[in-house]
């Protein structure tokens, strides 16, 4: 499996470490139903068989967090972007390792 790092180019997945689902976002701790929201954020996952947006850290490369689009049935990777690109989706930007 090779991941197209937007900074380093196509690199072996060995250089990356995996965090998980990139679509969950950390809730604000002072929101009224924060406890329930944190339960969902920490524990519950879609776990889809198919397209999956996921966080990978390029530990042996540019040390950037990436959002990788990968099919969990075939391991085919269709793209990768910086998790914290300035104009990235806000929900990605809020996910912290």
């Amino acid at each position, binding site marked *: 499996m090779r991941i197209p790092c937007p900074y380093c180019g196509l690199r*072996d997945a060995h250089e990356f470490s995996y965090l998980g689902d990139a679509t969950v976002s950390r809730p604000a701790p002072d929101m009224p139903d924060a406890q329930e929201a944190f339960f969902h954020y920490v524990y519950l*996952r879609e776990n889809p068989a198919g397209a999956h947006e996921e966080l990978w850290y390029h530990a042996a490369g540019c040390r950037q967090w990436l959002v990788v689009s990968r099919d*969990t049935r075939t391991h085919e990777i269709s793209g990768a972007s910086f998790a914290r690109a300035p104009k990235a989706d806000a929900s990605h930007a809020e996910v912290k390792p």
Partner: protein
Amino acid sequence: MSHYSVLSIIANAFNGQKGWTPAWRDAAPKPVYDVIVVGGGGHGLATAYYLAKEHGIRNVAVLEKGHVGSGNAGRNTTIIRSNYLLPGNEPFYEWSMKLWEGLEQDLNYNAMVSQRGVLNLYHSDAQRDAYARRGNAMRLNGADSELLDRDQVREMAPFLNFDQSRFPIQGGLLQKRGGTARHDAVVWGYARAADRLGVDIIQNCEVTGFIRTGDAVVGVETTRGPIRAGKVGLAVAGSTSRLTRLLDMRLPIESHVLQAFVSEGLKPLVPGVITFGAGHFYISQSDKGGLVFGGDIDGYNSYAQRGNLPVIEDVCEAGMALFPRIGRLRILRHWGGIMDMSMDGSPIIDKTHLPGLYLNAGWCYGGFKATPASGWCFAHTLAKDAPHAFNAAFRLDRFRSGHLIDEKGVGAQPNLH
């Protein structure tokens, strides 16, 4: 269907082996059952067997999308053991060990249960202390354990690399009652025994939806038509989220791929199961002579039933550190199975918030050894609408309430369990 015995072998020897009949019926689905168990692996079949045997519920169907045992039941490393630490886990796994010990007589089937011992090596003083604690926890729950020093390990397994430069072997925690069982025979034994009690085993029957009455689940849609049931139990391991998605349920589970390997056949070399304490590596020798070994999951969500090379390299490196003489062996086969990795590394056997729907999932790496007790406890939960004491801690709502059973203490990170 005849009872298997020495007499049946002798009788068939004299009639040209013509007396054998199929071990179970190829059942067609009936329109209604008392209980449907989805998943014809070890856990599902064991559940059906114990429903019939322990609770007298015989109007049961096991639905399998392929053929029985074609999922993780046929993809594991066949290890049985009960060397857990935490109170929620150890009584359950020890009950499983006890069921393994009586399994073949109970099922009238040779599952090749072999209590050849499971040895976990330790490589530091701190790890020795942790293993001593674990061994004591096992004993408190009625399991056996022995803390071995370096010389005792050397006597058992002289071929290990005791003076490995980074991780010299200092000793090990031995569970003599642990060992291996023949994974396919376990599946076939449960299938045959359940069938003899009236359970319908329906293969090539994939569940594609659920029949609902209000909130309640009252049956399933399948590739062989709708089947209604009083209760539906899911025991589908890595495919759990695929089914619960149809019910808009999100679970504390990620599906990951775990690879395993078998080498070419050798004369007897490895006496039992040996695990490396300084990396994730476990090895045993099958009765055919192949070394069966494995390590970590690949570490990313997967439904592919095949993994990638970095983990193969990692497993083989750990193997070489522990056991250098395997370096010239050739790997005969390797394969991958889809693990239902839960968020705390422990399983779920529970009712769900939907009336009529019951869940058996989250087995992570540990599903095979749990097969008998998983079926036994899931049958109890299905029959009594309440968990048995052995699975009382395996609640689905423990993630919400904070009563996690995190044996490794790594937190809600499934690829680290």
